[in-house]
């Protein structure tokens, strides 16, 4: 055992430095890089909805001649990848911490899972009776709406301003997209939604670095 470490810090300045260094070092290790939580989702929306717009542009045109199955497949693969990255990063950071935070995270996760399933089950039954372009709008506007609402809820749970603002932003652009109509909605979601997530990730990261400074 190191006998030395039972001794007090040499002076007040050393004690304060020790506190600050230790707190920032711990926070750095326990807080996952915010970019890893935001950016994969932003890229998924940007690319996935972007391809959807290019293939199913307004007026039933195809701006780029892609196979019709490609946009949705890419979107779902990228969303699954983003979910996996988020899960791995969170478990690595918070996996050994339990208590109230862990419970909040778990319940929030359940809200996403159960909320999605319950909504999509209903949508699936309606959308089969709709023309393709309206079915696509119904699906994406509902999915994006749920995402916006849950981001706002997450902001409320953790009192996280960035997360809440992102939720507001997503809800507003979803509204704009829904009024713009079929064909335009994916473009707005890709550029403003996906781009908004990339910006939010950069802001959250900067805030995090300021917090972690000793």
């Amino acid at each position, binding site marked *: *055992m*190191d006998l*030395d*470490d*039972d*001794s*007090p*810090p040499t002076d*007040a*300045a050393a*004690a*304060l430095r*020790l*506190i600050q260094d*230790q*707190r920032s*070092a*711990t*926070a750095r*290790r*326990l807080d996952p890089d915010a970019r890893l939580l935001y950016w994969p989702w932003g890229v998924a929306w940007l690319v996935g909805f972007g391809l959807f717009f290019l293939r199913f542009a307004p007026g039933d045109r195809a701006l780029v001649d892609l196979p019709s199955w490609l946009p949705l497949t890419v979107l779902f693969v990228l969303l699954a990848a983003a979910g996996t990255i988020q899960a791995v990063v969170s478990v690595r950071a918070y996996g*050994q*911490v*339990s*208590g*109230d*935070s*862990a419970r909040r995270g778990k319940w929030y996760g359940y809200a996403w899972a159960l909320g999605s399933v319950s909504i999509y089950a209903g949508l699936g039954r309606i959308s089969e009776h709709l023309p393709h372009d309206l079915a696509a709008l119904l699906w994406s506007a509902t999915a994006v709406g749920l995402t916006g609402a849950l981001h706002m809820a997450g902001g409320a749970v953790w009192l996280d301003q960035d997360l809440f603002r992102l939720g507001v932003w997503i809800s507003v652009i979803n509204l704009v997209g829904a009024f713009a109509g079929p064909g335009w909605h994916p473009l707005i979601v890709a550029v403003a939604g996906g781009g908004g997530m990339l910006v939010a990730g950069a802001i959250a990261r900067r805030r995090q670095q300021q917090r972690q400074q000793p």
Partner: protein
Amino acid sequence: MTELDPVIHAQARLRVVASLSTLNVGDKIAFPRLQELLAMTAGNLSVHLRKLEEAGYVEISKTHRGRTPATLVGLSRRGRLAFEEYTETIRALLDPTSSKEQP
């Protein structure tokens, strides 16, 4: 001059308490993870945790994660308060003009 809390006023225990203070209230961290964050040996950390527990500053609970036993460590309300007071005192020593105890 205000006396500094002798339980916290030791480098190793100050590091332990400072680390635990970054957790949210109501959270606990697994012993091995804390050990890794502090880069202390298990024996060394145990000794300091015991002293902190005797003072009522940390709460240690044994639980099970699946089949493996796990030890969880968290700052008690009293410990958090003691750490805040200690930090306040240190700051006041460094900058007496901002101290509330100054007339």
